């Protein structure tokens, strides 16, 4: 057995929602029997951007806001890996917002877990784009954004304290991506107990769609539910939308990391390229 790095103890405050998000990821990898060496967890910058240190998988600490393009590159180059991108709302919805839109549009098959706490914790309490004044609905709602992009294929929201549901959603997200169905976007409402303790506020306003007859394959119904709840100052959690397209068979996925680049295997094809330039 090769000894490698020792997974770290989380740096988070006692009671931080991120413990719930991490537990759900660990649960999903265990339930789906994905070995750590086939998993790559990429994290952004911020408190949530330390999650990769705690898991024992291949881990990567991205530049601030760039976790999605990096994860896209990893996934496209080696689709055999189970890729999980993770980060906070500052990372994903402020500095990295542009990439979220385009990742939803491209729909690459990896999972993105956003730990949304409405605040910049690591830099000690500045407002993030999802900071809420008491009682108001989300100023910025990433779930609505994701639903508005026609290519989006998996949109879910969990709450760090509701661990059974969060576990289910995380398993579903990782499965969705592994089957080549596309980008699994999972927002986890993950309160910051130090700078923005929204546990009581969220607990009182969340509406569990999984406990209703909501049909998650109906995008219009998802839009309808999310916006009507928003008007009432409430937020939807659960399996909000998932495309019911068939999985992409493995043999149809290009795999650059496995390409045979030896000159022997390519000599004829390279020569044919050169011939196009002969005069």
């Amino acid at each position, binding site marked *: *057995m*090769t*000894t*490698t*790095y*020792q997974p*770290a103890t989380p740096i988070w405050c006692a009671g931080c929602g991120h413990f719930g998000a991490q537990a759900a990821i660990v649960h999903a990898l265990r339930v789906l029997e994905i*070995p750590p*060496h*086939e998993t*790559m967890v*990429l994290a952004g910058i911020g408190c949530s951007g330390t999650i*990769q*240190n705690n898991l*024992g*998988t*291949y*881990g*990567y*600490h*991205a*530049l601030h*806001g*760039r976790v*999605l*393009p*990096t*994860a*896209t*590159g*990893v*996934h*496209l*180059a*080696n689709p055999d*890996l189970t890729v999980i991108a993770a980060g906070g709302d500052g990372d994903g919805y402020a500095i990295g917002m*542009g*990439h979220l*839109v*385009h990742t939803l549009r491209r729909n690459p098959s990896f999972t993105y877990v956003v730990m949304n706490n409405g605040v910049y914790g690591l830099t000690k309490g500045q407002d993030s784009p999802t900071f809420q004044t008491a009682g108001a609905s989300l100023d910025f709602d990433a779930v609505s954004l994701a639903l508005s992009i026609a290519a989006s294929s998996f949109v879910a929201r969990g709450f760090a304290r509701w661990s059974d549901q969060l576990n289910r959603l995380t398993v579903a997200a990782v499965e969705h991506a592994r089957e080549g169905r596309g980008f699994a976007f999972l927002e986890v409402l993950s309160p910051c107990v130090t700078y923005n303790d929204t546990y009581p506020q969220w607990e009182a306003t969340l509406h569990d769609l999984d406990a209703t007859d909501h049909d998650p394959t109906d995008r219009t119904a998802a839009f309808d539910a999310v916006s009507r709840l928003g008007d009432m100052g409430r937020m939807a959690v659960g399996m909000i939308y998932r495309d019911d397209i068939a999985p992409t068979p493995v043999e149809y996925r*290009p*795999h*650059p*990391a*496995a*390409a*045979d*680049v*030896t*000159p022997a295997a*390519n*000599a004829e*094809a*390279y*020569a044919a*390229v*050169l011939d196009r*330039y*002969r*005069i």
Partner: protein
Amino acid sequence: MTVGTTRRVNDLNVMVAGQGGDGSLTVSNLLGVLLGRHGFRMYNARNVASRIKGGHAAALMRGSTVGRSCMGDELDLLVAFDEEAIERAASWLADDGLVIFDSSGGPAPRANLPPTVTVYEIPFARMAIRDLRRDLFKNSLGFGVVARIVSASDTEAEEVLQHRFAHLPERVAAANVQALRAGFAYADEQGLSAGNGPLVLADGPPTDHILISGNEALAFGFLTAGGRFFAGYPITPASEILDWLERMLPRFGGIAIQAEDELAAINMAIGAAMTGTRSMTATSGPGISLMQEGVSHLGSAEIPLVVVDCQRSGPSTGMPTKPEQSDINMLVHGGTGDFPRIVLAPATPTECFELGAAATNFAQRIQGPVYVMLDQAVSQDAMTVEPFDLGAVEPVTGKRLSRQEVATADEYRRYAITADGVSPWALPGTPGGMSLVTGNERNEWGQVDTAAANRVAMVDKRARKIETVRADLPLGYRWGDPSAPVGMIGLGMERGPMEEATERLAAAGLTIDGLSPRTVWPVLAETIDFVRSHDRVYVVEHNAEAQFAHLIASVGGPHDRLRLVTKYDGIPFRPGELASRILEAEEVAK
């Protein structure tokens, strides 16, 4: 008009110009094929406005039997589709130059032209519409006249046209042949009979050649070195690399992707590179600015990537279609913190191919960023060169660990401190090779660690990687007289004019020793020694602040021997212009 004298040419400078969309490139391409049949080697450039259609657009072409790598001093032949073309080209025209003018809108403006220039006025556009019903046929019509000018037989001109349009539907080719023959008829009216024009083409040695631009050659080099992932964002003058790899990589099991911006482009490439896939991104100065954080991250996190900068005139958005070499400071010094990097600078399509492959290999060897620095002229101008030596490229893997090696190792540390600075690398997917990759300072395990001793050990380890490959970095191209007391040095697009200016200067009694470095950073001993071993060295570069000269001086090149020859007007040097600049400076030195 009757033609008096006939001149035999082995070096022909041609400009075909009009409004963008006039089809100037078609005429120049046809002439290029014709010249190629006579053993001429081509140098093709363009001068365009930054817009899709319209604006002055010129195709510049030099054909020579010896093979030149820049435009010459004077134009021998101008094909002008409008008055603006004549106004712009007038100062370049040789005294015995020839002008073919589309006189559909009136006679040629001769006021600016040297009186000895011969002008043929032919209403191409009007004739094309009247006789052939389409304006576009003016190109084949115009080529008919050009062919007569260079004394080609009508049969040969027709073969060239057929060759060029071979991929088009037969009726299109036939219509163009009809247009060509109409061109012959108008040429007859001007006294230009077949095989009896004012110019006669010499015959160069027939050889096996390719005609390719630097951007295409660079992308090809990356491919042959095993490059299988590319991410980029469209930008002039780098977009051809994205276009080329989007077409080619899927055929080789690779992927090219157009990102939403340069930040995404470099980070996608970083992601792919971490899987062991040889990866690249390419952009120009404004994109390189956005990528600085990513490049710094490559250096810190130790991820192999090729980053191409096709430089254009700056600052900011500058002059997007014009060449400059003003990103040298940014490539060599840009980014946050201290990190090892390599900057390579090819000057010809052949070198673009070779250094594109070499950069891909060096990136693997140092597990870090390797820049390839081009300029608009090197990127987009096309040249006739020997076919690339495909057999000479061997993809290098660097220090990677196989599954077997990891399985039998007691432990695996991603950032193990080694004598050569390079840490053996287990790719994601390897059992037992789990690692933490980060741009933060970290210990050998990849865990964040800011302890002073660890910090110093890690910075030093990363720096050692450059020393490990230094001896293998590409040396420069040399020409001229090694015993000359006067040296000339320059990068990329300066090579062609410098080499040719050296001939002119020799004829004027000044011998020159020339060096065109292919490695910009680290500055090799070769460059410093070159400056030290000459009384004075002219540093030829396209920027206002003499960035390359300052770089040389900053690492020990004696600054009192450096003579600055800068140009920043967006136009490449002509050999005669450069020779004059140096002769003037020599006068001052006396």
